[in-house]
């Protein structure tokens, strides 16, 4: 059976060049990067080379890069550390309702500390309004966090404009760029951000490694305490192999981006058109054009997402959904609900994220195999029956 991996938004396979570089570190460079002897020095050198690669990929200075254990950790250090360090200036923070939980839950924890948070809404396509953001600003606003692009529906946010306004008003601006690095151009100077979070495993690098860009001169209160590693913001002996892996991964991701993103965009469009064209009562979630090149999010009405994932899995297709059963809670995806989708439509959402391995044949396979799966699930759906009989869907 054909196996089609369309869940690159969840994670990606580690690329060959990354594995080779990491293997070399594991087998040859075991020294502690903090040791000044001949065992430690090569490890330090590798870390600093990787730091240069990460910095170069996003238009930053190497001194502005802090390696973390994940994108989540980078988000937390920036948001919680940034808010705590500036609380004398004010207690107001702004973010959006569609952030990844790494960001949302960090803000929720700050609310318990006495900070006030404004959560910006989104339109039907998942986009934040700059006007609503401006109206939310207060004299005591100290930090703003808006994701670069949404992980579920791929909506690209107007971070440059928001960043510019923040910079003018001397408000810290953080952006979660975990989904955009290697997909669309990411430049910290153009975004005007003070912090930017990225992750290794979304760009064919290893899991367990992320990085935080922190603009020169910006201060945060450390969340962890220990040694002096990573400017005391991420103390603990560095994961040298993972850091090297991230460096190699991001270098390749950025170099291949123009060609690869154009290729994926074409495949994505064909996938979207193919599914929408062959199955009735389907809709695209998120914008048609201003979205991540590898993201297709489609709702297939009157069937449930987990059942769809399981059925597709049995035919070799790996996808994800925003249904309640897959979001780990009793409610469907907070992103889809914020976009104004009904419970029915959100439960039937299907996220397909393309990547390196995706071919034209994969897209054909999905278009061909999806319809009979949907027909089968709809045949046993009492909601589909209601729809066909013109009864209200409750």
């Amino acid at each position: 059976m054909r196996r089609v991996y369309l869940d690159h938004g969840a994670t990606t396979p580690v690329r060959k060049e990354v594995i080779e570089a990491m293997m070399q570190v594991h087998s040859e460079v075991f020294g502690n990067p903090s040791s000044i002897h001949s065992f430690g020095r090569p490890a330090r050198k590798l870390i600093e080379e990787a730091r240069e690669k990460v910095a170069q990929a996003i238009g930053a200075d190497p001194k502005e890069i802090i390696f973390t254990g994940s994108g989540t950790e980078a988000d937390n250090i920036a948001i919680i550390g940034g808010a705590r360090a500036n609380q004398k200036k004010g207690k107001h923070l702004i973010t959006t309702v569609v952030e990844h939980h790494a960001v949302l839950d960090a803000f929720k924890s700050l609310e318990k500390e006495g900070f006030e948070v404004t959560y910006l809404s989104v339109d039907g396509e998942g986009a934040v309004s700059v006007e609503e953001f401006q109206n939310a600003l207060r004299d005591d606003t100290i930090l703003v966090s808006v994701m670069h692009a949404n992980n579920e529906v791929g909506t690209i946010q107007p971070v440059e404009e928001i960043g510019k306004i923040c910079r003018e008003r001397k408000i810290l601006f953080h952006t979660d760029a975990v989904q955009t690095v290697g997909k669309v151009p990411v430049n910290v100077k153009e975004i005007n951000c003070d912090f930017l979070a990225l992750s290794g495993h979304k760009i064919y690098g290893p899991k367990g490694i992320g990085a935080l860009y922190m603009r020169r001169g910006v201060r945060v209160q450390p969340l962890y305490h220990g040694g002096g590693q990573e400017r005391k913001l991420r103390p603990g002996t560095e994961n040298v192999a993972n850091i090297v892996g991230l460096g190699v991964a991001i270098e390749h991701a950025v170099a291949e981006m123009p060609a690869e993103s154009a290729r994926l965009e074409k495949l994505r469009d064909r996938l979207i058109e193919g599914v929408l064209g062959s199955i009735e009562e389907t809709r695209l979630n998120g914008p048609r054009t201003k979205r991540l090149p590898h993201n297709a999010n489609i709702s297939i009405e009157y069937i449930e997402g987990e059942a769809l994932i399981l059925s597709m899995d049995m035919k070799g297709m790996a996808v994800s959904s925003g249904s309640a059963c897959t979001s780990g809670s009793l409610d469907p995806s907070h992103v889809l609900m914020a976009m104004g989708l009904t419970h029915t439509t959100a439960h039937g959402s299907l996220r397909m994220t393309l990547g390196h391995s995706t071919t034209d044949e994969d897209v054909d396979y999905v278009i061909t195999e999806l319809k009979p799966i949907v027909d089968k699930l709809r045949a046993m759906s009492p909601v589909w029956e209601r729809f066909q009989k013109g009864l209200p869907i409750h």
Partner: protein
Amino acid sequence: MYTDKVLDHFTNPRNVGEIEDASGVGEVGNMKCGDIMKMYLKINDETNVIEDVTFKTFGCGAAIATSSMSTEMIKGKSIDEALNLTNRAIADALDGLPPVKMHCSVLAEEALKAALLDYQKKSGKNLGLNEDDFEDWDEE
């Protein structure tokens, strides 16, 4: 995450469909949580035997599997036997469900009892089912 039996009943669900002249029909669940089950019973008024049973379900793998399994467990059984079917027994028959999916087995039990309640109303027989009990269930 799911047992082989759950996957089997999900992939090849038994007794899917509707019964046109059903003796009792029950529908439970709501769109918010994302599970709706509808069960149809054909009951022999003389013998009180459930001669046919079908279902339609909107829901996850566990919701479809528990619906399917519950129809298999009551087909050909008496009303009394069906009334004694518990959600635990349905889950056990599937070799267990993940803890977060146990509510699906509750829903299957509710769907069956809702269909029997409908039959109670239509037939005028007293099966000991009380409408008020269902309102409580809905909130689970």
